[in-house]
């Protein structure tokens, strides 16, 4: 891939790329720790994880500023323009993922106070799946691989399926056992948050496809899509 003639511009774009990857790495770490805190009922881990969100918020602001600066000073075009547009959207999704990890940790702290609920089929699988999607989408981003990003989009259907399964099981349990109501509601929220993580991973994947191919694959089918 040829480099930009202006080497400072080139390094600015590379730095932005690295920053996004680093932020994504931090967010992935938060999600992983939140999942572990939930599984192991570790309130302490949940508390330390919540503190990480500070850095992620700083990342968001700094990446936004870097994008604005490149837009103002370099007037990027074509692939570069798509990269900046993509970075601006990705940073929002990543920041939301961080927030959701915080929400998960809060629920983990609540759940740790209560007696353990017998394991719910599918919940652990959901957590593993969304983490995998997050990792894959960032790999696809780094490699500028649209096909791998598309694979992530497809996996979101599985997340939704699992979510509905978890939902049904939880509702069934709560209707049978009133004492499980409190814990059930928290767990319901956890499932909802995991499902949302899947949505954000899907957003990221769609942004990667746009970055690589210049094609907007969001809401495909509803708009008829632009001719290829």
């Amino acid at each position, binding site marked *: 891939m*040829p*480099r*930009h*003639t*202006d080497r400072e*511009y080139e390094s600015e774009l590379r730095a932005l790329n690295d920053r996004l990857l680093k932020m994504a790495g931090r967010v992935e770490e938060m999600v992983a720790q939140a999942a572990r805190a939930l599984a192991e009922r570790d309130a302490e881990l949940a508390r330390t994880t919540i503190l990480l969100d500070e850095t992620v918020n700083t990342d968001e602001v700094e990446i936004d500023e870097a994008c604005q600066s490149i837009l103002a000073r370099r*007037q*990027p*075009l*074509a*692939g*570069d*323009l*798509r990269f900046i547009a993509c970075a601006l959207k990705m940073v929002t999704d990543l920041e939301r993922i961080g927030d959701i990890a915080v929400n998960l940790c809060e629920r983990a702290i609540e759940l740790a106070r209560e007696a353990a609920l017998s394991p719910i089929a599918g919940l652990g699988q959901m957590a593993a799946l969304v983490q995998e999607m997050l990792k894959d989408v960032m790999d696809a981003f780094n490699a500028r691989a649209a096909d791998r990003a598309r694979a992530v989009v497809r996996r979101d259907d599985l997340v939704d399926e699992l979510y509905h399964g978890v939902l049904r099981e939880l509702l069934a349990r709560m209707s049978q056992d009133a004492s499980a109501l409190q814990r059930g509601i928290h767990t319901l929220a956890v499932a909802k948050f995991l499902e949302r993580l899947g949505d954000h991973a899907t957003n990221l994947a769609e942004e990667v496809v746009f970055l690589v*191919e*210049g*094609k907007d694959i969001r809401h495909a089918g509803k708009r008829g899509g632009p*001719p290829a």
Partner: protein
Amino acid sequence: MIAAPAPRAPPTTTAADATTPVKLAVRALDAGFGATPVVRQLTLDVPERRVLAIIGPSGCGKSTLVRCLNRMHELVPGATVGGSVLLDDHDIYARDVDPVLLRRRIGMVFQKPNPFPTMSIRENVLAGLRLTGALRGGRKQPAIDGIVEQALTRAALWDEVKDRLAAAGGSLSGGQQQRLCIARALAVEPEVLLMDEPCSALDPIATARIEDLIHVLRERYTIVLVTHNMQQAARASDLTAFLLHGELIECAPTERLFTQPSDRRTEDYITGKFG
């Protein structure tokens, strides 16, 4: 929107949306100096009342290409031209075409503002008509004044110079001089306006004025704008053609060319990954 089942000629050429008629059609154009080819087998459509920007690195043949469109290229000793250019479906290189008459239909504005130094603002506007003898006899003074006012108004210069039409053309600022040159070209009532890097000698404000003017002029004229400023092409044109080594690499609606060019070389050029 419309599917294009017809096989496209090798490099993407026809970018015109099917709704607008083609004003200028370049067909397999070859141009050069002596044995050196500058433009090679170039095919391109310019739709009517649209702005086509031509971009490309120095020496890619953009200026030579536009100079072939009003047969100015052949005035250079040793210049060669092959292929054809159709203006309203009629080849301007056909034997029965007088290049002098043709140039009244296809006006041109140059890189450096070049008002005639020995003439007043008014005389500059009328220069095209006077030079060609079109004003000799017949027309009354008010009619001539009307021509001057109309051309200057269309070039967005009237308000600035209406009180000093007798002043020398050279007394204007660079940007005003360029608009005077545009007025001079418009006074001949051309159908097509060729602009060869019209803003490269102007400051950003004067440039913005010209670009604003281009937006207005496109309602009446077909415009071909050569520019080495990609931002200008992005701002001012409907279609953009990218030339490299005398060949057309890509011609597409400006918005598409600058967000998702289909050719790697276009992408590299517009993002500054060159050489």
